[in-house]
């Protein structure tokens, strides 16, 4: 087992830490960085709860090692709302449409939706829905989440 020093930018803050080579990015964020908003639902890449953005792309942090994130820019669910607490429109849509119950899957859905609404190319409802098939929610039956998707794809993205 070897240890490595990595430097990343997480939600805009530079973080430099020494981690074991085998530590997952999910555990690094949760344990080493105390960013517990990223959740672990399966640790085998199916449920999507651990999704974070690495250099602008949504990735599963349970399938990535912390050392692979050396030099990367990471955004987690803690870095989505404005500093004054104003929710991102993805978060607003999920709240308005009752897209969460226990909230455990929610950070993953938020990160994938944020990555989709913030990308340059426009996205339609079907495409967004298809992207969500990489996430499992056991509480909502997806009804509220799909209503949020409708809302997010109906409103033209604002700057």
């Amino acid at each position, binding site marked *: 087992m070897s240890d490595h020093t990595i430097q990343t930018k997480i939600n805009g803050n530079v973080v430099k830490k020494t981690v074991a080579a085998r530590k997952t990015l999910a555990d690094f964020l949760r344990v080493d960085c105390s960013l517990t908003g990223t959740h672990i639902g399966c640790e085998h890449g199916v449920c999507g709860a651990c999704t974070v953005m690495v250099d602008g792309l949504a990735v599963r942090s349970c399938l990535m090692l912390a050392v692979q994130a050396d030099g990367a820019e990471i955004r987690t669910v803690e870095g989505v709302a404005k500093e004054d607490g104003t929710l991102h429109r993805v978060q607003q849509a*999920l709240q308005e449409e009752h897209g*969460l119950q226990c909230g455990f899957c929610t950070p993953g859905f938020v990160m994938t939706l944020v990555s989709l609404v913030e990308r340059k190319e426009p996205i339609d409802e079907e495409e967004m829905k298809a992207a969500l098939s990489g996430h499992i929610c056991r509480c909502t039956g997806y009804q509220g989440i799909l209503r949020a998707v409708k809302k997010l794809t109906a409103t033209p993205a604002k700057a």
Partner: protein
Amino acid sequence: MSQASAGAAARYVGQHVVRKEDPRMLTGQGRYVDDNVVPGMLHAAFVRSPHAKARIVHIDFAAARALPGVHGIYTGADIAAMVKPARSLHWPPNVPYPVTMPLAHTDVRYVGDPVVLIVADDRYIAEDAAELVEVEYDPQDALVDYMTANNGPKVHPDLDSNLLWEMASPADPELDAIFASAAHVVEKTITQQRYINSPMETRGIIASHSAAENLTTIWSASQGVHQTAYYLANALACDIADLRVIAGDVGAGFGGKVHPGRDEIAVVIAARHMRRPIKYIEDRMEHLIASAQAREESALVKLAFDAKGILLAAKFDYQHDSGAYPWLPSVGPLAVNAFPGPYRLPKFGWRVRAWYTNTVGLGAYRGPWMFETVAREQVIDIAAKQMGIDSLELRRRNVIHTADQPYKTASGQVYDRVSPDQTLEKVVDMIDVPVFRKVQEAARKEGRYLGLGMSVYMEPTVNAIGGIRTTFQAETRMDASGRITVSSHIGNPGNSMETTLAQIAADELGVDIKDVRVVYGDTANTQFGPGAGGSKQAVGAGGAVTVAAQALRKKILAIGAKMLEAAPEDLTIENGKVFVKGIPQVELTLKKIAESAYYLPKTLPEGMEPGLATSHRMTLPVTHWANAAHACTVDVDVETGVVKILRWVASEDCGVMINPTVVEGQMSGGIVQGIGGVLLEHSLYDERGNPLAASFKDYLLPLATDVPVIEYSHVCTPSDTPGGFKGAGEGGAIIAPPTLANAIADALAPFNIDCSRMPLSPDRLLMALEASRSGKA
């Protein structure tokens, strides 16, 4: 989003109020069990049995012990020396139970049975150490299929047989005579497969012991903290007062987090022994093989009808798999109670057999008794076909109407204030049956197979099963600044009670919902009582909050009356202010009233106690029945076996809805779990007892792309409990499976496919279709 206008009698109850829970959960600030860090905390991992049945010959943990960072290793024998065997508090009296220890200590009885507990600096090291433990086993023939349990190898050597429990209604010659002379007798065996709860957050616990205080503090992913303390105290042979249980946010449970597992009990014992905090978070594979199972069951259902299709009698011969160490030994009694369902059924005979097998133990899963509805509603469709009556018509002829109530069922339950007939007609209207039949006929001509399925059921909410579930308490208090705190023992694994209980209190006390905080999830600051489960939050906790808040309102008004020199009846509270109705200019803020109550006791009305806290504990001795009807339409691809759900309509009567959006969320969550059960989810074991679905790659759950848009309608028949609420938490999961199975059977009627064995996954449907075609050819 409409939060209703202030001043109306009910400003929040009945409205779509956005949830108080959401802002923290959406921003990563929820606090789930694994998010807690306790100073000095160690981490646990388990060595689990790879055999369904084996004797433990020898355990060699020298290499594990030598690994740096390992602090404790406990075998079953170590734990057995520290604790007495304990049976589940759900065990029926006078029914023998196997010696149950937290870890396997002489032999293992299912794959996943915990054998050794490792405690280390972190989970990585604990798992390394677990891999270094060498356990020598002497494997034996296992019993995997409960249907062969009677003659199979014994699961528990200390018991006489594999039959956990058998119960039956008394012999009834009258019942037999009805069957002998009935115009139509229909019988069919219905079978359902094993499900695993699979909440997105697995089980988890942190235990930290203070010897100085003789107090063990436990953070648990628990559906109810007092329930967890109650079960743990039983297992540890200590008092509830020796434990403090805390649950923060809980990533759902669906019944699986009602009762601590044997492994979790071992963690608490080790933490008390080592005097070090220990965290154990179950991983997904452990959840899928070693947590708890549900729904592996079957029943032979016989229905007798007269010549007009009027139901005369039923027999329900039900068997289910209880696994090796069930914490819920049998769901039989609940299933029997609910079997008569929404129909007038004069006579009923039943038998229940619960069998041990070498599989993981039975636990609760959303509507644990739901097989009664699955079996009854499928056989109603089969009966309709056999008698040549339309299945909707058959339901209409037998469904209970308002005029029939109160109606005492053949299982001894009393229905009052229920509306199965109305919900049935609502879904018939919504789905537009005549139009669908035309579309179906046209599609068949083009070789497309559409189907319509329907079900009606009665849902026992607040199942009156005694014990800790008998009474429900709530406290409402106003602090010196005029803000409200509600405290409840009910848990919140996603049921939104932080919002719904606040809605109730805000209405009763005339305050903004922002000024109500709901406190729960800690045995130290809530009173003893049940947690979430059994759809009792609205009736039990909501009812108790209603009464407690009404008492607080009365006190506030009495103080206000004295201060304003008015009669209490002439006063009201709105927007946090007390004033004479119609004269809002002369007002008193709640803060002023609170100051009187806390600081100026002499100003209070004669004889009134100072302070502003009211508590109410209510008893719910009987089950409160909710009801619903669902219908769905499907398109079955006969080349691939894939079922596409076209529409899903649901009409539900859960009495007064505190928050319709929350009710619909509960309905849809349950419906999709039911859809998953019919089409995807299957915890299959091979013949040697190896679980074959040990990851989400094998245990398939429904995804956003698999679900229809659910259409709702509500009938509101208030219950006679405070607030008029009924439960709504389990219904979707109960009624969805037979609704969908009936639709698939209807779609495939031209092929005469037997849909009585679930799941109806594409591979199984294709096999059935092929058999049907080759039979025809």
